[in-house]
């Protein structure tokens, strides 16, 4: 009897721990996948590159994960960046345009990243200088960004916006040794951000600003600058994702590229335990969140369910994770559980 109590208290404590549920969710998806697809854990080497379902999940999750990392930083300041999908579209259009103009691809890479930074600068200006609420401020670029992308495509006469670039495609779909390049890019972004956030005081400042802006200001933190930097980071991350996604399809398609990526990125942050109320940044858990989202999509594909089930399953799982994170819902479930037992 007493062991039963300690077990349930321990379970309760574990249930309250932030990382428990997302990791359990990811593990559960992987285990289920192992059952429905016998070859799920197989990793082969094809054309000098690692292949396999698990690798594929990491591979496809990278753009969302990179965008989500930037989003996590912005959400840490109590902000949100709805414009990341549009930023990807604009970056893609800029890449295609400059390639048609014959610029050096190396320069174009930096132009694309610079475009991301510029978009971040715009959002940062609206939020930090004009003091417009983030959700509203970034809505502006979200609404108009894809239009801007279409406009950039017109710069070279509206002809075929597809292109070839060994450098950019190498970054997106290539591999170094056995490892897909974009995984290396993703890990690089993660490590760079981790150092920026956790090995400088920027993380503390962002969390202070997100937790209580006026208190942070009075404590000597330049909140405006901190918020600005967060949007720059998000813009840059969206730019990197823009390079990967555009090079992947060899074309600039502002209308449909990275559709709903902002929502996936926000979901990744939230599934990873971040709160939209700001004040905390969890980089590692954000990547886990992005992996959960992609693992779900992949599971549906390999399970043979029609792809149209994807969104529904995603919604249900998201709801499930959210309900698990809610104290009220947990109590209700526990209550039901103990009521059944007695």
């Amino acid at each position, binding site marked *: 009897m007493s062991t039963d109590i300690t077990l349930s208290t321990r379970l309760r404590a574990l249930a309250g721990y932030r990382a428990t549920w997302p990791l359990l969710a990811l593990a559960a998806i992987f285990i289920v996948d192992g059952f429905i697809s016998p070859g799920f854990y197989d990793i082969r080497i094809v054309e000098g590159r690692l292949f396999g379902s698990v690798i594929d999940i990491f591979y496809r999750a990278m753009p969302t994960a990179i965008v989500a990392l930037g989003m996590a930083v912005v959400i840490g300041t109590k902000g949100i960046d709805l414009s990341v999908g549009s930023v990807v579209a604009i970056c893609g259009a800029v890449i295609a345009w400059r390639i048609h103009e014959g610029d050096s691809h190396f320069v174009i890479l930096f132009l694309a990243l610079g475009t991301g930074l510029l978009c971040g600068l715009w959002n940062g200006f609206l939020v930090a200088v004009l003091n417009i609420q983030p959700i509203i401020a970034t809505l502006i670029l979200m609404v108009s960004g894809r239009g801007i992308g279409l406009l950039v495509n017109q710069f070279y006469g509206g002809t075929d916006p597809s292109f070839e670039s060994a450098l950019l495609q190498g970054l997106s779909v290539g591999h170094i040794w056995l490892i897909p390049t974009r995984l290396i890019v993703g890990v690089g972004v993660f490590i760079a951000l981790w150092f920026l956030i956790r*090995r*400088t*005081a*920027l993380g*503390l*400042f962002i*969390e*202070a600003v997100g*937790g*209580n802006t*006026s*208190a*942070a*200001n*009075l*404590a*000597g*933190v*330049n909140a405006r600058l901190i918020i600005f930097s967060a949007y720059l980071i998000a813009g840059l991350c969206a730019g990197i994702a823009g390079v990967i996604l555009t090079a992947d399809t060899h074309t600039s398609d502002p209308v449909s590229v990275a559709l709903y990526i902002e929502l996936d990125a926000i979901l990744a942050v939230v599934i990873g335990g971040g709160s939209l109320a700001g*004040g*905390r940044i969890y980089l590692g858990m954000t990547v886990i969140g992005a992996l959960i989202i992609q693992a779900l999509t992949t599971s549906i594909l390999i399970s043979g369910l029609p792809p149209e089930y994807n969104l529904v399953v995603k919604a249900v799982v998201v709801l499930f994770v959210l309900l698990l994170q809610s104290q009220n819902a947990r109590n209700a479930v526990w209550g039901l559980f103990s009521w059944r037992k007695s």
Partner: protein
Amino acid sequence: MEDTSIPRIEMSGITKLFPGVKALQNVDLCIYPGEVHALLGENGAGKSTLIKIMTGALPTDEGKIRLDGQAIVLNSTVDAQKLGISTVYQEVNLIPAMSVAKNMTLQRQPTRFGLINWAAARNLARKRLKQLSLDIDLERPVGSYSIAIQQLVAIARALEDNTKVLVLDEPTASLDAGETNALFEVIRDLKSRGIAIVFITHFLDQVYEISDRITVLRNGQLVGTSMAKDLPRLDLIKQMIGRELEQAEGQLTKRSTDNLGEPVIVAKGLGCKRVIEPFDLNIRAGEVVGLAGLLGSGRTETAKLIFGALPSDSGTLTMNGEVVTNNSPRQSLGRDIAFCPEDRKEEGLVGELSIRENIILSLQAKNGWLKQLSYDEQERLADEMIKALAIATPDMDKPVNQLSGGNQQKVVLARALVSDPKLLILDEPTRGIDVGAHAEIVMLIRRLCSQGMALLVASSELDEIVAVSDRVAVLRDHKQIGEIAGDEVTREKIIGMIASG
């Protein structure tokens, strides 16, 4: 005439248990019609739990409540309101963007066929406001009025035709003397109408001014109920904190201000239009300068102007001999000035961050974002401060919002002290904290000063200003009206200065 021998409301044997704590233990409280009853006690004594039980916000574990002799059971605040028990909470609780009329009638609008009859609703609001002799535009957003008017609107809202018991939780916390008097007029009027009033405050002057009887709680237990006129002030304080108030607070000797160091800051004609008129002020190392005045006199504004939290538009500010331009909190911090704001929750702490992170925040901001303090260093500094200020916490990595008010205030102080300031600006350092912590903080101010720090202390409590300050700048109506030093620093002198037109 009503029978005044039956209590309006009688609570007997009230016991309330929270997990691990006995919040209330066998407490009795009884209030007669037309009585103003002060409910006193330190933070955590059980005042708010008792009030929540009285107003139906919490169920009681044991005990009975009788209203006009009838036993009642309260399941919700709506129940209590229907029976005539209303509350006005500590912070004004109205919707700032909504009109006065809409605020007054929210959830009780007269309806016709399911639709609100706004004409009738406005009449109702007007009638209620008239009871308090308040004549304001019903259509303006309530947030466009002063806090005092908002407080009166909140009271008017709480008063229904059948109101028998009115609970006022710290209603005067953000009112100045004139506004408080106006509120007391209203309370006396309500009293004459036979309403039983529960008055919670931490201003002892006001307790004696308005209340008939006083009930003191301590650690969830009833200490006693007495007639106000039979309970001397010293006995009341004794009841509240259970020990003689150490006279130390009032007995600090004023030191001569002659042999002090160089001025840390010199303000000449510093001002900001519509906020504070230009003033001169200098503060030298090793002295405490007080800022005295009523609410709205410009105390906070003066402090913020010097710290750079408000922009100045006239005059000059010299810090350590350098003229400061484009002052900001960040710059002031770099010049070894630290500031503890008045409003802990809104401007002081980052609630979600840990005690450790809150303590080192200013020092880290001073060092810049590239030079991160190592974890060991952070731990050492936080530990030092937790010991030095006796912050009661088992764990420095606990979110700071889990601490009690007094300990939170100490964390704000600790943050300022860790940045090793030459000038420390304290705005209301003892607001909202209990008597014990109050004395500790007053002692701390004197100790810091004797170690050579310069301090600027703004406070609404005159006794506190008198106790800690070597020099006092007196303010009235956004203007500095004079400065006194040494033996001149007395309660009477300051009151005289503020009162003299």
